[in-house]
């Protein structure tokens, strides 16, 4: 009698990368829903367009590389990349903006580096950076809360007609930066009607929803605590330090945590394992770097948000961080490395 032969171990822990990706997608849903509630259904249109573009781009590259496209698409990594990018693009931006960014993210930032697992930079953030540099005007106009309905989305996103100026405006982060640049104090800026409790009407609720999804991921063990905690702590620490120095010029830690892509970045973007550092201590350093750089870029830089560039910069530092934070191997001397 012959038996089948296979290598050990003969049992497994039933974890699956595709299932992990699907869990992350699921965890994004509350944030997307709150986003759609405040800023209209534009975000859903962006997600649809980005997904279609990313999947098509991924399939094309797979065919060109003579790899089975369906197996690659099934890992859900392209879909996750598309969703993350779509959530960073203004909901009323014309469809070709997010389509271009999505295709760039998949083709250039991911597949040209070798595909899933081999890319150096977070594809979604690389796509966002490419869009921000190429189409700065389209990338900074966010709809006012409750202003955009289905009709506006249809004309602005799918027909690519520029939305009327009354519908859109700068984000809270952008406003603070611009008006501080004009010499105003923070108290005056906050008095503007677009500001909510912490970081611009609607934004804080979206951030809360992302936080809920992120905590769910943590609870399920899909992500580890190191990156979100270190990034948010570093951001809050930087903000607190400068806020204490001059509360009129530097916004509060709460504002920075609730504004822009802080929470989204901490739980969903910087946690991308492929482009982050690998060891727990390495991840703490990596994420602290992302948090600090986010604050620096937001406060002294020229872009509406700093998360994307902070993530990309720290991505490039990840191999070095990995090298210097290697854990001491069992049985080896303490002084090696």
């Amino acid at each position, binding site marked *: 009698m012959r038996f089948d032969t296979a290598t050990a171990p003969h*049992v*497994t822990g039933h974890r699956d990368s595709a299932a992990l990706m699907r869990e992350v997608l699921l965890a994004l849903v509350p944030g997307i829903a709150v986003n759609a509630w405040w800023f209209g259904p534009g975000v859903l249109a962006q997600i649809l367009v980005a997904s279609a573009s990313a999947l098509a781009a991924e399939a094309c590259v797979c065919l060109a590389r003579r790899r089975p496209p369906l197996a690659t698409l099934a890992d859900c990594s392209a879909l996750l990349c598309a969703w993350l990018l779509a959530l960073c693009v203004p909901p009323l931006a014309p469809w070709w903006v997010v389509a271009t960014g999505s295709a760039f993210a998949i083709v250039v930032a991911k597949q040209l580096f070798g595909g899933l697992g081999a890319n150096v930079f977070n594809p979604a953030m690389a796509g966002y950076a490419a869009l921000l540099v190429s189409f700065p005007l389209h990338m900074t106009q966010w709809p006012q809360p409750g202003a955009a309905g289905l009709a506006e989305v249809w004309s602005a996103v799918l027909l690519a007609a520029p939305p009327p100026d009354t519908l859109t405006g700068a984000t809270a982060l952008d406003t603070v930066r611009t008006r501080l640049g004009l010499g105003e104090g923070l108290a005056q800026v906050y008095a503007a009607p677009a500001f909510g409790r912490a970081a611009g009407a609607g934004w804080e609720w979206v951030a809360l929803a992302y936080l809920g999804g992120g905590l769910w991921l943590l609870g399920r063990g899909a992500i580890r605590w190191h990156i979100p905690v270190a990034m948010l702590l570093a951001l809050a620490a930087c903000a607190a330090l400068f806020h204490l120095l001059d509360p009129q010029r530097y916004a509060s830690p709460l504002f920075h945590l609730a504004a822009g892509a802080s929470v989204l970045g901490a739980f969903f973007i910087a946690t991308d394992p492929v482009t982050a550092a690998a060891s727990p201590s390495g991840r703490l350093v990596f994420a602290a770097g992302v948090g600090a750089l986010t604050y620096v870029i937001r406060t002294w830089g020229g872009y509406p948000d700093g998360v994307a560039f902070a993530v990309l910069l720290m991505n490039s530092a990840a191999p070095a961080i990995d090298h210097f934070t290697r854990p001491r191997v069992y049985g080896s001397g303490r002084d090696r490395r």
Partner: protein
Amino acid sequence: MTRPPAFAPARPGRFDGGLRLTRPPLDACAHIAPAPLPERLFVALRQHAGQAGELRVRVGERVLLGQALTRARNPDELPVHAPASGHIEALGDIAAPHPGDLREPGVTLRPDGLDERAPDAVVGPAFREREPAHLQAALAALGVAGLGGAGFPTARKIAAAGERTLHTLVVNAAECEPYITCDEALILRDATGVVAGCEVLLHASGARRCLIAVEDDRPRAIGALREALAAADDRLELAVQPARYPAGGELQLLQALLGMEIPAGTRPVAAGVLCVNAATAHAAGRAVLHGEPSTTRMVTVTGHGVARPCNLLARLGTPVADLIATAGGYRDVRRLILGGPMMGVALPHDQVPVTRAVNCIIAAGDADLDTLPGEQPCIRCGECASVCPARLQPQVLFAAARVDDLEAARAADLEQCIECGCCAYVCPSHIPLLAHFRHARSAARESARAGTTAARARERFLAREARLEAQRRARDRQLAERETRLRDAPDAKPRVSEVRAAVARARRRRAERARGQ
């Protein structure tokens, strides 16, 4: 969506990484019995870490139970003994319990069922009055070697301590792999024997105390040991460990028990600790107290692919097929695993004999096996690193091993891998990491061996070249000296007187030779 199992991080006072694995719903300890005498025994000549001894039997010869079949000519060799009385049917290669269908030198014995015993030299219960060296010699003569897997000769292990004193004897009964219960079965069958073996080893090694490590999910074994320890030497102590894979790994057990880390490239005896398996201690006890050579071992026969999971006290050389038959035969079996589900090897067929290293046979049915979806790219999630007991970074090792970059793998401490398989177990991309690392480790050992041979040959070649060059130089120097001497002489041409003197010398020599004849 099934909830992934939780992987609790390491706590202080425990070993790093590891997994909490669930035991199968099979109780192989419900049935513990000696395996029936098979029709033929296939005894491998080499069942320990070292070289096989010299054969001392001929085909057709009758041997007695416990008679030595081979003789050790040096400490690297260890004798094997006849597991039953009977006739030698053949000498030559027998099937080896190996995934690659290998064969190895062995003796085919046809038992006669009489179990007539060879006279033994018994040390007996008064072993404490003998020198430890005497006990060590008895252990070596009776073929006692590790029954935990590596098969290191016990006497050689004690002797490796040399001048250093051993402070602790650790007896490992922590069977961390699910399914394996042979040590528990042995304890349930003969806890007193295990404890007596510990006392023997304590005296033979000169250690101050003995810790018997058992996992906390084996209440029956703990109870039996407690009872046996009540009447034993009070230097023996029970150390109950949390059940966590791989708690039974030697290095992990020492880390958890004593909080010590064994430096790379050294053995625990160098740190004053002697670590043996519980079954080895039992065999040492039988050898010293009863003069019994090590010819049996407890084997777990389990899995959903066998009718009645059980633990069988098998004679070394019993074919696996016979043990399966004793366990009620196959029932929807898919894979035959030698060892546990984490590290065990899959056997191509069941016509292989039990050797000292065979602790468990799993006739695995569908309920015992996981079918993995296809392999996906590594996403560097770091789960593997978080469960690695050696604190390695398997994702880095994998990147090196995949492209056969042995230098990079060495730099990432591939040699410290204990091949526990935790990394492959948790990998969400289903990468067969353990298979990659086993392959890379054997390739590295092979290249190191080839490297040493090549280096030695190169050294010899260079030495010869240098010697020839030195000779050539010396000759050249002599010639040059003579040339300058002659050239620097007042008259460059040989003088007439010199020529005459030479002619006279030649004549004298010729005349002497003529006289000699």
